[in-house]
């Protein structure tokens, strides 16, 4: 009789387990604020979009703007650069994407082929690539040697993906809203 008592769960065992589980769940809830406080806070999130004037960027040149603490490259592409980017749509790309998929329409609804807007952060480990450098005259990352083309697509080196295109739209012919 005494033996079966020791083996079979009692009401007290149940209470122990229930109390313990409740305490564990409570502890997990208490830890969450301590973890989540490290995520971007309200003031960081508030700075999330910028509007820039692109009329001062001549053809064949590029300007850099700071958005969310990162550089954004806005490149006024020449016809030759556009042609090179489009021709390479058919090349073997590590991260296949057509040039047109990386561009956005202007106010008229037509694709703005002259304007390439990419985040200037190498998709390998985050360095800022150098413009108009490397085999494809697009970008070259000095850190570990990734090479991008005139569409910001990765062509060579350790970076896994193309330069990211930020969310943006043309608010007029000469102004872009990023973010």
């Amino acid at each position, binding site marked *: 009789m005494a033996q079966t008592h020791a083996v079979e769960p009692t009401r007290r065992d149940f209470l122990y387990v229930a109390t313990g589980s409740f305490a564990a769940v409570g502890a997990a809830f208490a830890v969450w604020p301590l973890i989540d406080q490290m995520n971007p*806070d309200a003031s960081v999130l508030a700075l999330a979009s910028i509007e820039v004037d692109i009329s001062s960027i001549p053809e064949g040149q590029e300007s850099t703007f700071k958005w969310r603490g990162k550089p954004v490259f806005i490149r006024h592409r020449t016809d030759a650069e556009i042609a090179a980017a489009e021709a390479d749509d058919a090349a073997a790309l590590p991260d296949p994407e057509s040039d047109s998929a990386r561009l956005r329409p202007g106010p008229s609804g037509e694709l703005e082929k002259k304007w390439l807007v990419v985040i200037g952060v190498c998709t390998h480990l985050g360095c800022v690539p150098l413009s108009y450098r490397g085999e494809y005259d697009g970008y070259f990352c000095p850190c570990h040697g990734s090479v991008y083309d005139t569409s910001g697509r990765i062509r060579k080196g350790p970076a896994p993906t193309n330069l990211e295109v930020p969310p943006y739209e043309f608010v007029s012919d000469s102004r872009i809203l990023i973010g």
Partner: protein
Amino acid sequence: MSHQSTYTPGNAFSRWMDERLPVMRLVNDSFVDYPVPKNLNYWWTFGAVLSFCLAVQIVTGIVLAMHYVPTTELAFASVEHIMRDVNYGWLIRYVHSNGASMFFIAVYIHMFRGLYYGSYKAPREVLWILGVLIYLLMMATAFFGYVLPWGQMSFWGATVITNLFGAIPLVGEALRTWLWGDFAVGDPTLNRFFSLHYLFPFLIAGVVVLHIWALHVTGQNNPAGIEVKDPKKDTVAFTPYATMKDAFGLAIFMILFSYFVFFNPNALGEPDNYIVADPLVTPAHIVPEWYLLPFYAILRAVPDKLGGVVLMFGAIAILFVLPWLDTSKVRSARFRPLFKQFFWIFVVACIGLGYCGGQSPDKILIAVGDGGFDVTDLSRILTIYYFAHFLILFPLLGLIEKPKPLPESIAASVLGSEPAKS
């Protein structure tokens, strides 16, 4: 070896204290009467050197924190202020920044010592694992510290290292943003790194206590790699023998330390870190501090992002399982002719990786036609050797090698083959 306590309180107060909180007994049994093998050489003084380094970093660090400001606006200027205006600020900062390098010189010697004399083998596995843990914490601490002056290398080093975590599938990006507290390395990042840089050395101190505790349970290994048989013949008292030897080793070490602090304080640093951080321009050649270069070379040797990160962390993780990869029962390389040769090849490979990590990856070493054998090729060969050393040679050597005969006892190894006079 856990030995019988030999402490006898000398006066009424220490007797009273001993019955309430026996700290004096602990100190006596750990650092005075504690028996150490009598054949320890100078490679065994680096434990004391390391304790000294930790103390120096904590003391100078706490003082620096009285003047340093952890914001992106003011961090760089506050370090310049420490250098120019604060009384002896230049000295304190140079001791702290060179102290980090000296700390790593000492820890690398300490670790290679352990590898050479087989100190990681049974029964010292836990002692070794705690050591690797301290090494990991040291790297994290030094990384956080290097970000604080907010120069170009601080910023870009922080960017590259935190981006490593972005390579983790699924959760990588969220984890990276969480580490940053922003969408790039910025103010929140600097502030939390300062908080963690202050915390980690005290975590290290905690693990050091466990490390020494484990050491005093198993007793020290020694150059002969054999256990103490007769404490009377094989050991001497920690004080004065080990204390004095440690003090002498430390004095020599401090000469080297002083050379860097007083005559060449920026030799081990990067000039680019005297340029204030600019999130829009990456320096042409970014490199981590010298003590992280071998791992950086392994990272770059792999053409795949995730693969590089996995191998880099793997290179450290493998140290944790070392005790179980080595199949040889003989500890000391003195009696392992093959292992001894491969040990030195391994040292050269590590230095070679360090060299590669500091060079531009496409630098040509041996020109052949247009291209040739470049730094990346060399890093690949050395990376393969690094892993092969542990994963292939460690298990294999123990099986094929014929060790030399071990000395009868520590006393016999000190006094030659003749039986020790007692």
